[in-house]
Structure formats: structure tokens, C-alpha cells
């Protein structure tokens, strides 16, 4: 099973601005997730450079590589960093981190940076976990929910399914939106059930009037993911509200946020359009960590 389908493209960017030395305090944040690793460098509160890589087998090495790429090629070195904060699944392995912070607070803080002050509900659609975070207007986490144990591994499973179905992970989302009608989703309990059911949807027109088209098969799979994520986001809504009520601006971060097949369906169900950002939503954790590093360093 070759991996060219399930392998999402890595990304490195640097602002190459020469005046970083006078731009004020420089901090870095590194988010080593189970599936992806991001590093972000901020100068004076503005994004200077970032890197977004696959984590691979060694968490520590991935963190170091991501940070060096994020420093860019304008002469900035690790020594120039006032503070480095690590977060994510592998935060204990980040050698160069001065402090560590949990993912929920980093994603929340990063979402405020990426999507503006109007965001009050953040859904981090990560490789292994789905986190729904509710924020106060000031930068404090009000409440958060993480997925049930059986709903682990959402993002990772999409990579596996794309390898099996020979469709690129970046195309499966847009292609699923081409379906005229959304068929019923496959199993929404765990990704192993969902993958098994989706793989069986081909051929065999036994009970359907005619076999599902390719778009409809992807639609029913991603609809199941969207439904599972709604189960986590919905738990933040008030208990006695009938339909799910989302508190203010909704923002998606993490890998699956780049999949319109999932985010568009969640928005349609909630009747809310999510906020957008010019930066990659996967960076929320790293940027949040960098901002928190700056605040902590200023606080001491």
C-alpha cells in the first residue's frame, strides 16, 4: 500500500523580513501532534515563519526539524528566541522547549490569533482526538469536551482510507461535495466501522436502486465524520436547548479543518458559517503556544 494518496503536503513559510531584529520579542511554539508537527515563530506578536511536517517515528527530532525550518533563512537562530513553548501529544520530547502547555489552551489562544477576537467556539479536528473548546471573550477557556474513547483516531483514519481508496486526501473533501444528495452516513461510532462500511459500498447494487456514485460514497463517509464531530461540539451547547446552539464565532483548527467535505457539512447542520483565516488552521496549536510563551515570559 503506497502512501502517496494519504500523505498530505508539508508546508514551510517564512516572511524573510530582514527587520526581525528590531521587531521586538521573538517567541516560538511547537505543537508535536500524533500525526503532524507544527512550529511557529512570532516576532512582536506577528507571525514570522512556520513549518508544518509529518511527525514520523521520532517526536523529538520532528520538533527540532520543524523549529529550524520555521526560523527561516534570514539568520535567526534558536539563541534569538526569548521563549519556546511546547505542546501537543509529544510535548515531553521537545528538548528546546522552556515550558509546555496543554493543547486545549494553545488551540484556543491560537484560534483567537488566526480567526480574530470574534471566535468563541473552537473545534480542533486533530489526528487522534477531536476537541471542542468554548472560550470567554477574554482569553480564558470556559469549557471543553474531548471525543469519546471510541471516536479516537478520526484524522489518522482518513489518511488510511485515502491510501485504500486511491484518492488524494486533499481531493476527497471537494469531490464529496459534488454529490447532489447526501446519502445516509456510514457508521458514526468509530473509524474502523466507518472504513469497513465505506469499503463495502462499492459494487453490489442489491438494495440500492443504482450503485452509489464515487462522490456519494465519499459524501456518506465524510458525513459520518461530520456527525461524529457534531456529537463532540454539541456537548458544549446548553442542555435544555432543543437544537444544538453554538456560542458565537465557530472556528475549525487542525488537519481535518482543511477538508471542506467535513467542515461544510458541520456548518450546514449547525446553520452557522465558520470563521476563516489566511493562515493554515493546523498552526493554531503552535501559534497559541508561542503567544502563551510570550505572555508567560512577560508575566515573570
Amino acid at each position: 500500500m503506497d502512501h502517496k494518496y494519504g500523505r498530505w503536503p508539508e508546508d514551510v513559510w517564512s516572511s524573510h523580513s530582514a527587520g526581525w531584529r528590531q521587531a521586538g520579542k521573538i517567541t516560538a511554539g511547537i505543537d508535536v501532534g500524533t500525526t503532524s508537527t507544527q512550529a511557529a515563530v512570532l516576532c512582536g506578536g506577528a507571525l514570522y515563519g512556520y513549518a508544518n511536517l509529518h511527525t514520523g517515528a521520532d517526536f523529538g527530532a520532528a520538533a527540532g526539524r520543524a523549529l529550524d525550518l520555521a526560523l527561516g533563512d534570514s539568520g535567526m537562530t534558536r539563541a534569538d528566541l526569548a521563549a519556546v513553548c511546547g505542546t501537543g501529544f509529544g510535548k515531553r520530547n521537545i528538548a528546546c522547549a522552556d515550558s509546555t502547555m496543554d493543547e486545549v489552551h494553545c488551540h484556543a489562544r491560537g484560534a483567537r490569533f488566526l480567526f480574530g477576537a470574534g471566535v468563541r467556539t473552537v473545534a480542533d479536528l486533530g489526528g487522534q482526538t477531536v476537541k471542542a473548546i468554548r472560550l470567554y471573550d477574554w482569553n480564558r477557556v470556559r469549557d471543553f469536551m474531548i471525543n469519546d474513547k471510541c471516536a479516537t483516531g478520526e484524522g489518522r483514519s482518513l489518511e488510511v482510507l485515502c491510501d485504500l481508496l486511491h484518492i488524494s486526501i486533499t481531493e476527497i473533501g471537494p469531490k464529496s461535495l459534488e454529490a447532489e444528495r447526501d446519502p445516509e452516513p456510514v457508521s458514526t461510532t468509530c473509524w474502523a466501522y466507518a472504513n469497513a462500511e465505506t469499503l463495502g459500498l462499492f459494487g453490489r447494487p442489491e438494495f440500492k436502486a443504482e450503485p452509489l456514485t464515487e462522490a456519494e460514497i465519499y459524501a456518506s463517509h465524510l458525513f459520518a465524520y461530520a456527525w461524529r464531530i457534531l456529537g463532540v461540539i454539541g456537548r458544549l451547547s446548553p442542555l435544555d436547548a432543543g437544537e444544538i446552539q453554538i456560542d458565537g464565532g465557530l472556528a475549525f483548527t487542525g488537519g481535518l479543518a482543511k477538508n471542506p467535505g467535513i467542515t461544510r457539512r458541520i456548518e450546514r447542520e449547525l446553520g452557522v458559517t465558520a470563521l476563516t483565516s489566511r493562515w493554515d488552521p493546523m498552526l493554531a496549536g503552535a501559534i497559541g503556544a508561542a503567544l502563551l510563551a510570550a505572555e508567560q515570559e512577560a508575566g515573570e
Partner: protein
Amino acid sequence: MKGQRWETRPLDCWQLAKELRRSYDNSLADSSIVLGNGTTNFYVDWQVAFPAIVVAEDNPIGAMMAQQNEAFARKARLASEVRGWGREICGYHNNCWGAQFLGRTADGKPFPERQFTVPFPCVCDSHIKRGQQCRDYKPIARWTNDFTMYIGERDEKREEAMLDHRNFNTLKQLNEIESVFGQRLDDGKLFELARNCRLLKQYMTNVSYFMTFTPSPLSVKDLYSFFQLGGLAKIGPEKAVHFWKTLRDEVEWRVQNQIAAVGSERFRWIEAHPPSWHFLKYYRYMEKYGAVCLGSQYTHFSQSQLERKPDGSIGERSYPVYDPDMELTTREDAVRFMTGPDARAPHHFKIDEYLRPYALNEFADVFHADGAMFGLWRSGVGCAVTRKEQAMRLRQAGYSVMCYEGSQPGDRVDLDEKRLIDQLDTWMESLGLEKLEDV
């Protein structure tokens, strides 16, 4: 059809059953006081004693929701999942509780406002928790009762204490509903109701008995449209008795004239509990192999009424009953008569019965089954408890048993329909049976 062995005829009382069910569904919407899940005993029909009250049971609402409107059932399940009732909760409940909070049912009508709830005791322990959710939605009165059970031979001391416990709680409910709602309970009607239960059960036992013959006059598909009438679907005792009498006579006639439910019947199989209500296609798919389903203890009115007699014949199970025309003077007599002298009613447990992993051995023997198909539900504990071991016990007794997986019957989430059809093919091919059209 190829492989036809017996003559088949559509059922005459089919239309009658449809109208009775439709009248019950409509009655839910337009009544002043709606009782919650409302029976102290499976067959008590509250409308007799309290005319203004209509029963809105969780079971019928939750079970049929996925079949009526799959998209709405999915929304209802999401509404209950976000409230903490995750996938370990039975599909009947997830659908019903979620729809309650959404405020509407599958056909768009507003969800019946329940004024009080009396969940009927059942062997499944998620039933015991039921009825609390009506109070989560809106604080209403709730009376409950216990499902008394013990294992082993009949022990008079245990029976007496348990029967007192059950009857006391039933009486308490009747008296308190009277006082809370100012509805005068008509004892005379209650006595008539009590006698009615006996009659109803008698006809149902006859129908079960006729299905032990080859070819079977009814298949489980037909049973599903009737088995709730008079039980959970409250259609009024006279109508229920009338209907079941006509059905019983027609089925008897079909047995005498060897009219089969499935003309090509060559493989008889039983089930363990309710099917996936939203995917009943697999019964017709199995009929392509000439395999007819005879139902489960659940569809045979949650009872084990038949047994193999010592002389080898099949007859009604002998469990202690009160004398049918016992003199009923007070309300307590009526309640005691309805509950019956067996504390383990309505299932009439033998030592190794129902909940136990041998329960279906006698059921399969009595119905001359060749195999069994068990749905292993991931939630819905009352249906799935001890089923895996029961499947192995049946295999040891020589029956061919196939297990498939799904979430609870009222819930589409985990039933991989394609995989189920594949497993049916595998099961039939492993027994050397081909589809009749392929032969």
C-alpha cells in the same frame, strides 16, 4: 416462484391490523392528558380505567423512528448524544429521548406531552432507568415498579414477598394517579380488563402454537405488524380481543389447509430478540434461499408459552395461574389476578430460562428450527445479555447459528447492511443452500 412447495395466500386480517395501528398512532396526538410509558403490567390497558388518558410508550416511538424517517432518527440520536446519552444507550431510548428534546416526532407532529410516567418493569435494566428522562425534560410525576426475578426452582417464600412488592406498587400507582388527576378509576372496568388479559394471552399462545407446524402459516414479518396490538399499542381491550380472535381463527384455518407464509420453505430459523426495524429487507432476502423466520421469544409476546411435554408433544407451558373465573371484588383482587401467582411473570422463568444462556434451546426445539440468527447489539443490554453464550449452546445442540452485529434495533448507526447480506450468503453457502433462482 422456483422451488415452490406450498400454496400461499395474503392474510385477510391485514387491513384490520393496519387500521387499528393507525387509529392508535393518531390517538397519540390529540388527547388532553397523555400518560408516559404507561402500564404496570404488559397488558394493562389504561384507557379502560382512565378514559381521558392515552399511552405514549417509548418503545413504539423509538423503535419505528429509524424506519419511518432515517434522517430524523439520526438527528434525534444526536440530540440525545449531546446530552450524554452516548452510543451505549439502547436505540429505542436514544431515538425517543432525543426526539423529546427536539419537540417533534418522525412524522413532524409535536412530541406527545407526557403528564406522568409509569415505566413498565422489564427484564432489561435500561427499562428501570426509563421514565426518568420524561422527568429530565419536564418535572412530572413518576411511579415505578420492580421486575422481580430469581434463579432456580420455584420458592414459595421468595414468590410471596416479591408478589406483595409488585402488587403493592401497582396498587399504589392506581390510587395515586386517581388522587393526583382526580380521575375516578372504575373498578368494574378493571375487573373486565383483568379477565381480558387472560383471553388475549390465550389467543396469542394459540397463534404461537400454530407456528410450530411445517409449513409455518405466519412468518415473523407478519407477526411484527400484529404483536404490539393490545400490548404496547393500546387499542382498547374489546378491539384487541376481537382482532386476536379473528387472527387466531385465520391462522388455524391456514394450518389445516397447509397454507404457508413462504411457499418455498425449506430452512426454518429463529431469532433471539427484535430485528433491526429499519432493515427488515433481510427477511425477504432469506426467503430467496427458502429460509423462513419464525420469530423470537420477543416477538412471541416476550413469553415462553410453549414447551416440549414429557410425552414428546408440544403444548402450553404449565406455570401457576389463578383460576380464570376467580371472584374479583376489590381493586387489590384485580391487581393480584392480573399479575398472576408467578413472581417471574410475564416470562415465567424455568430454572434455565429467558435471560439464561439455555433459554432458546427449548424454543428452537418446539418450533422445529434448523438454525438461528442472533443480532449482537452493542447497546440495548436486555437483548444482548447472554446471547453470545446462547449461540454457542445452540451450536452444541446441533443448530447452525449465525451472529451479526449492529447497534440496538431502533438505531441504524452500526448495522453494516452490506456486510449483513454477505454474512447471510456465507451462512447459507456454508449449509450448502443456494439461492432458488440460481439453481
